[in-house]
């Protein structure tokens, strides 16, 4: 996390670059080795959850602002592309880009009044936001198909259709890896330091010349856009969307991912997404008891690694991944 020195690169930087390249290689090679589409499906869902969680981590883990309604933006993203393509026949790729921009703008508009609140009040306000979206998606049957959900079209980019698990695995993970690089750069830049200072000492940030309100609003908008992107992609991938993706349980799941993985670490949301996506599947054999075991494991993580799984990998001097 330290700014790069002209003379020698910090070892952590080197590990990170190597790890990233290995991951990129794995994304290219893995579909050749893993032929079972079920495993690929799980990996794709990890990437989708990861994308939304990376955005939420910027807001919650770095800037220290909670949102209990981020699944609302996932839902808006999903229904945005769903309605635009299936109902109005728009170009899927264009619809995706416009929807993400709309999520960004909505996040911006909503953040301005809401981020004046702090702590529990902010939690309640964002909870309300998520509920509004969830209720709207359920109620506006003419647009959304109501609780039954709606069928979406498939994603095609300049005539190339994204079809099958292999293609989606590559799309989702390359996007996630790309977003991770941007996040890491941002966090180490002046803007990122400003966010981290806002979390720990907002007044000190202000007297240092940081416009804390603008920074918070921006990071909220970015996290809304990433949640929207995650929603758009899962809508195209699964071909069928329901209002459940916008409900409170999904919002809580996103927060769980960030906290379990490690709030305020770049890799945390990915580790969290792996655990929270894989564990319920892996425990499915326990027939009904899997929720209990899952809950117990989450408590264990919080007891023994209160800063999340990523903190277990941090170096002796306490720097995070």
């Amino acid at each position, binding site marked *: *996390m*330290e*700014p*790069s*020195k*002209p003379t020698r690169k910090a070892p952590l930087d080197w590990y990170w670059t190597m790890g990233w390249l290995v991951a990129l290689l794995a994304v290219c090679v893995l579909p050749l080795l893993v032929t079972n589409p079920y495993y690929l499906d799980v990996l794709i869902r990890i990437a989708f959850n990861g994308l939304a969680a990376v955005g939420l981590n910027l807001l919650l883990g770095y800037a220290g602002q909670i949102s209990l309604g981020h699944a609302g933006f996932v839902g808006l993203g999903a229904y945005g592309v769903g309605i635009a393509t299936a109902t109005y026949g728009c170009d899927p790729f264009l619809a995706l880009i416009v929807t993400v921009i709309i999520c960004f703008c909505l996040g911006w508009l909503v953040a301005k009044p809401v981020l004046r609140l702090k702590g529990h009040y902010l939690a309640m306000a964002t909870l309300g936001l998520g509920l509004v979206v969830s209720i709207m998606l359920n109620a506006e049957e003419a647009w959304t198909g109501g609780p039954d959900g709606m069928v979406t079209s498939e994603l095609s980019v300049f005539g190339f259709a994204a079809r099958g698990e292999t293609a989606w695995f590559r799309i989702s993970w390359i996007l996630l890896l790309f977003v991770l690089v*941007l*996040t890491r*750069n*941002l966090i*180490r*830049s*002046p*803007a*990122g*330091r*400003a966010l*981290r*200072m806002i*979390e*720990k*000492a907002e*007044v*000190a*940030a*202000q*007297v*240092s*010349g*940081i*416009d*804390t309100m603008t920074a918070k609003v*921006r*990071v909220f908008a*970015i996290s809304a856009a990433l949640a929207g992107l995650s929603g758009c992609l899962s809508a195209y991938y699964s071909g069928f969307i329901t209002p459940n993706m916008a409900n409170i349980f999904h919002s809580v799941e996103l927060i769980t991912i960030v906290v379990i993985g490690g709030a*305020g670490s770049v890799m945390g949301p990915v580790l969290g997404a792996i655990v929270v996506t894989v564990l319920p599947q892996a425990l499915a054999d326990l027939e009904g008891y899997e929720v209990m075991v899952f809950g117990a494991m989450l408590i264990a993580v919080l007891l023994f690694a209160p800063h999340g799984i990523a903190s277990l990998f941090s170096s002796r*001097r*306490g*720097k*995070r991944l």
Partner: protein
Amino acid sequence: MSFLTVENVGIRFGGLVALADVSLDVTQGEVYSIIGPNGAGKTTLFNIISGLYRPTSGHVRLDGEQITGLAPVKLAKAGLRRTFQNLQLCPSMTVIENVMVGAHLSLPHGFVQGALRFASLRRAEQSTCHRCEELLDFVGITRVDHSRLAGQLPYGAMRRLEIARALAGNPRLLLLDEPAAGLNNSETVEMAELIRKIARSATTIVLVEHDMGLVMKVSDRIMVLNYGRTLAIGTPTEIQNEPHVIAAYLGEEDPQ
């Protein structure tokens, strides 16, 4: 020509008058101390000057310009920096990163520039990093500590780190809120030297402090506050011999 002027400033919180009709003027390059018993309104006055509170009455001017009630961000742009009595650091950032936060305004701080790591940003970061390392040397934090997390520093070093962060903004006016609070004797002596060193670099300093030894050693002029009112203004020797001040601190002598 006075650099910082406070004119008849008053502030009340509900029915409580925290400051009444306080005036002071600080000349450029001066070390001006505000002292007084607990609850006299020293920190309140600081919070008014640094834009955290808006005074109920009166004005504050910096270099002739009206700054009353301006937001802290605007004041930072005008060249005012401050430290805090209760430390305001980010313990999960490294020491050098904490100092670089102080240079926020002189760096390109856009989100897009940051995420894409523009070459211009990398260059600016590098030179700022060098300058901040020199500032840490200046306040006396050793090089091995620069890449440690701020939360791992000893308490006295955290106090100096806050000053380094304030200096990173190249302040014209530096407000130090109890920089020696919690320091032991030798650390307090070092702090006094540091304050004199900063003053020599032509930065105007306003200081709130309880440690009288330090105040008398570093100040050019001193203002004594008591119950939100000005009790006396003068040089350290004048203040030490001022009967009102002695009365406020030690209690009045029995008229018998």
